C-alpha cells in the first residue's frame, strides 16, 4: 500500500527533480574537494556553504508550500519550526564542545557557566547523543505544530486569523528565547561549535558532507511532499483549500487533514533548520523574528505555490538576490524585497512556475489545461462583518 503510494508519487517531474538534487549532492562537494583550487570548475568552500544555506531555505519554503499552496493555510510562523529544529541541533553541537569552551567546563556550555548555573537543566539531557538530537529535531517542531494546529483547526480558526495567530506564536517564542533563564543562550543563542559526529565543523570535508546531506534531505522532502500531494489525501487537501466547508459535507475531517499537513510541514521545516545550523555555525532568537517567517512566504509565492518545484526555485532565486543586494547595495535590499511582495501578489499570483506554465499554454494553445486560480479566499462579504457601532 505504502509502496504503491510512493510509486504513484514518482511522476516524471518528481523523478527529474530528485535526480537533479542527487546529482547536485554529489557534484558540488566533488567540485570543491576533488578539483584543486584555481582550476576551472572548482567551487570554493564558502560557496558550498552558501549553496547549502539556500537549499535549507528551499526545504523550508517547500514545507510552507505544503500547507499554504496545497492546503490554503498561510502560516506566518514557519520560521519558528525552522528555528526549533535549529536549536535542537545547536544543543547537540553545544554538547560536543565539551571542555573546549572559554570556561573549559566539561559539564556546562559556556553561557551557563557565565550565568552561574550549577548543573545542566533537565531539557538539555540526552542532547549529547546525535540520534536523540535528530529525533528532537523532528519531535519538537512536530509536537508544537500538532498542539497549535489541534487547537486552531478544531475551533476553525481560518484565513487571516490563523495567519495572525501563527505570527503571534513565533513572536511569543522570539520573546521567550531572548530570555537568559530559558537556558538557550539568550540573546547570543548557541554558537562556537567545534564538532559534529567527531568531525570539525570548520573542515572542508565536513562542509561538503553537510551540503550533500542537505541536498539529499531536500530530495527526500520532495519525495515526501510529492507522495502526499499526489495521493487522494493531496486531492482532499486541495479541496480543503478551495472549498473547506464542502469538503466537510463530504465527510472528511478537515481539521485532521490540516493538522496532518501542518505537522508534516513543521517536521520538514525543523529538519531544514537542523541542517542550517551546523553550516552557518550559529542559531539565535533572531530566527524566530516574524519578519523571517513572512520572507519565507514570499520565496514560495515568487517561485509558485501549489507546485513542488516552485518554492525551491523561489527560495534559491530570492536568496541569491538577497546575497547580492545586501553585499552590493545594502540600502536597496529592503526596497527590492518590499517591491517583490507587492509585484508578486499583484502580477504574479502563481509565481514564476505559473508564468512558465502560462507561456507554455500560450505557445501550445492547450487552453483547456489552464488551471483556474486557487480560490482559497472567500467572497468579500464573508470577511466583512458588520460595521463598528
Amino acid at each position, binding site marked *: 500500500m505504502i509502496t504503491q503510494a510512493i510509486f504513484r508519487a514518482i511522476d516524471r517531474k518528481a523523478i527529474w527533480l530528485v535526480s537533479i538534487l542527487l546529482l547536485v549532492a554529489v557534484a558540488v562537494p566533488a567540485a570543491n574537494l576533488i578539483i584543486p583550487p584555481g582550476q576551472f570548475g572548482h567551487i570554493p568552500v564558502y560557496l558550498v556553504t552558501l549553496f547549502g544555506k539556500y537549499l535549507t531555505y528551499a526545504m523550508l519554503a517547500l514545507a510552507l508550500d505544503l500547507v499554504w499552496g496545497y492546503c490554503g493555510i498561510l502560516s506566518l510562523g514557519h520560521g519558528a519550526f525552522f528555528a526549533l529544529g535549529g536549536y535542537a541541533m545547536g544543543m547537540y553541537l553545544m554538547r560536543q564542545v565539551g571542555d573546549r569552551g572559554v570556561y573549559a567546563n566539561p559539564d556546562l556550555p559556556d553561557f551557563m557557566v557565565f550565568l552561574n548555573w550549577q548543573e545542566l537543566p533537565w531539557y538539555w539531557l540526552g542532547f549529547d547523543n546525535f540520534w536523540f538530537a535528530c529525533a528532537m529535531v523532528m519531535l519538537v517542531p512536530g509536537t508544537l505544530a500538532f498542539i497549535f494546529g489541534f487547537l486552531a483547526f478544531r*475551533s476553525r480558526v481560518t484565513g487571516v486569523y490563523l495567519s495572525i495567530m501563527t505570527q503571534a506564536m513565533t513572536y511569543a517564542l522570539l520573546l521567550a528565547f531572548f*530570555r537568559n533563564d530559558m537556558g538557550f543562550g539568550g540573546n547570543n543563542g548557541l554558537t562556537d561549535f567545534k564538532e559534529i559526529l567527531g568531525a570539525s565543523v570548520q573542515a572542508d570535508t565536513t562542509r561538503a558532507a553537510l551540503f550533500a546531506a542537505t541536498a539529499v534531505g531536500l530530495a527526500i522532502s520532495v519525495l515526501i511532499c510529492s507522495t502526499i500531494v499526489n495521493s487522494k489525501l493531496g486531492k482532499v487537501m486541495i479541496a480543503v483549500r478551495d472549498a473547506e*466547508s464542502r469538503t466537510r459535507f463530504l465527510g472528511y475531517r478537515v481539521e485532521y487533514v490540516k493538522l496532518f499537513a501542518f505537522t508534516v510541514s513543521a517536521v520538514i521545516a525543523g529538519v531544514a533548520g537542523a541542517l542550517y545550523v551546523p553550516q552557518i555555525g550559529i542559531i539565535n532568537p533572531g530566527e524566530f523574528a516574524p519578519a523571517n517567517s513572512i520572507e519565507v512566504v514570499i520565496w514560495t509565492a515568487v517561485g509558485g505555490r501549489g507546485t513542488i518545484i516552485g518554492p525551491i526555485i523561489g527560495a534559491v532565486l530570492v536568496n541569491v538576490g538577497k546575497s547580492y543586494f545586501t553585499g552590493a547595495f545594502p540600502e536597496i535590499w529592503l526596497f527590492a524585497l518590499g517591491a517583490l511582495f*507587492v509585484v508578486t501578489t499583484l502580477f504574479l499570483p502563481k509565481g514564476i512556475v505559473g508564468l512558465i506554465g502560462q507561456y507554455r499554454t500560450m505557445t501550445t494553445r492547450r487552453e483547456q489545461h489552464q488551471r483556474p486560480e486557487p480560490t482559497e*479566499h*472567500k467572497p*468579500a*462579504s*464573508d470577511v466583512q*462583518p458588520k460595521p463598528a457601532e
Partner: protein
Amino acid sequence: MPVIKPFAILMLLLGLAFAANTPSLAQAPDAELSTLVDALGPGSFKDRTAAIDALTQTGDPRVVPVFETLAAGDLYMVKTSGKVVFIAKSGAEQALTDPVTNADLDTAAKSDLDKVKVNNSLRRTLRTAIGQLTLLSPNDSVRLAAAQSILRDADPDSLELLESAIANETDPTIKATMITARAIIILKLDATSLEQKRAAVPLVAAIGGRDALAQLSAALASAPDELKLTIQSNIDGLARDQAAWDVAQNVWYGISLGSVLLLAAIGLAITFGVMGVINMAHGEMVMLGAYTTFAVQETIRQNAPGLFDYSLAIALPLAFLITALVGIAIERGVIRWLYGRALETLLATWGISLILQQAVRSLFGPTNRQVGNPTWMSGGFELGGISITYSRLWIVVFAAVIFFALLLVLKRTALGLQMRAVTQNRRMASAMGIRTPFVDAMTFGLGSGIAGLAGVALSQIDNVSPNLGQGYIIDSFMVVVFGGVGNLWGTLVGAMTLGIANKFLEPYAGAVLGKIIILVLIILFIQRRPRGLFALKGRSIEA
C-alpha cells in the same frame, strides 16, 4: 482619611521646595555673620554660649548648619587665622569650606586645625537655638521645613522643643505636621505614657502610605503589650490601603498601556473590521506620524523656538493628512486590486511596510530620533498613592477623544453611514448609488490617518525609530482579534483588558514573560471564541 493626608503632605513638600528657593527674609550680611561665626572658636564654653546667642539673634537660616555641625563636634577653627570652618577629608589634607558663604577655602593639615569643643550643656543650647531658628522662625516656610525635617528624622531629643513650637504655632497646617511629628516621637520614646502612645497611634497611622507602615512596624516591637493590638490593627489597615493603592496604580498603568494599544489598534480596527483588509503597513503609518512630529519640531526649533509648546498641535493635523494620503495612495495603488484576497493583501501590505521603513531609514537615518515633550506634558503628580505623569495622562485623554470622535464619525456622518452600508452589503450599497471605491479609499484614509495621530502621541513616550511601527503591529492585531472584529467597543474593551492584564502580570512574571503569557492566553482564547469577545452572529458570518 489616608486619601487626604498624603495629599496634604504633598502640598507641604511643594511649599518646602518653594521655601528652599526663596532667600530668607532674615539674612545678615556675609561679613557680619562670618565675624559672629568666628566668635564660636576661641574662649571658654561660656563665651561660646554667648556667641551662639548672638548668632541666634540674627535669625539667619545659614546659621543652622553651623550649629548642627558644632553639635556633632565637626566644627573646626584654623589655628593661625582663628577662622571657623567646615572640613572634609581630601587626601592627606583637609579641604576647608567657609561655613557662611560655602566657598571653598584652602586645604590644611589636621594639625593646623583646632576642634571647636562642645559639651552636653552646649548641645542643649544648640538644639534650642536651632529650634528657635527653625521651628520658631517667623518665616512660615522655614517652620514648615523644620517640622517636616523632624517628621522625617523623629529625633526624640527634639520633643521638648516641638512641644513649645506646637504651643506657639498658629498656622493649622504646620501645627498638624508638628503634632504628627510629636506622635511619631512619642511612639519611639519609652518614657512616654501609655495614654500618650495610644493617642499617637491614629495620628501616625493617618500619615498613610509606606511611611506610616514603617513607623508603626518599628513601634510595634517596643510597644507595651496593651498597645500591641491597636498598633497591629492599624498596620493591617494601612497594609490593606497600601495594597489597594498598588492595585489602583497597576490599573492606571494598565489604562495607560491600554490607551497606547487603543491608539495603535483603532485605525486597524477600521480597516480590518470595516473593510476586511489586513493592513500590515499599519504600524508604519504610526511610525510616519511620529516622524512628522519630529520634522515639525525640528522646523520649529530652527525657525521659531517660541512655538515649541504648540508643536504637537501643529503636528496632529499634519500627521493625519500625510498618513491619510499615504493610506489612500496604498489603497488606490495596491489594495483595491486585491479585494477578496485577504492573504494576498496581507503580503502586499507587508511589502509596503518594508518599503516605508527603508524609506524613512534612508531619509532620517536608522537611529532613534529625539522628540521633545512640550512643557505641559512633562512632569507628573501624585494622586493619593498613585503617581501619574502628564504625558501618560494626556495620552489617555487623547485616546478617549479619538475613540469617541471616531464613534461619532461612524454614527453621524454621511461617510460613516456609507462605510457601514458597504460593509454590510457591498453590492447592494453599490446598487443604491454609493460609490464603493470612494468609500473604500476614504475608509482606508481614515484608518491610516488615525494611525498617524497615534504616531504623534506615541512619539511622546516611545523611541522614534524606523522600527517604531513593528513593535505595535502584533499587539494591535491581538487587540482587534481579541475584542472582536467590526466593533469599536470591542476594540476599546480589548485594548483595556490586554493593557491591564499585562500590567498585573508584570510584577509576578516580569515584562517579557507577562507578554508571552498574554499571547498564549489570546491564542487559547481564540480557540474558544474564534471571532473575539464582541462577535457578531448570523448565517452570513458563519458561511
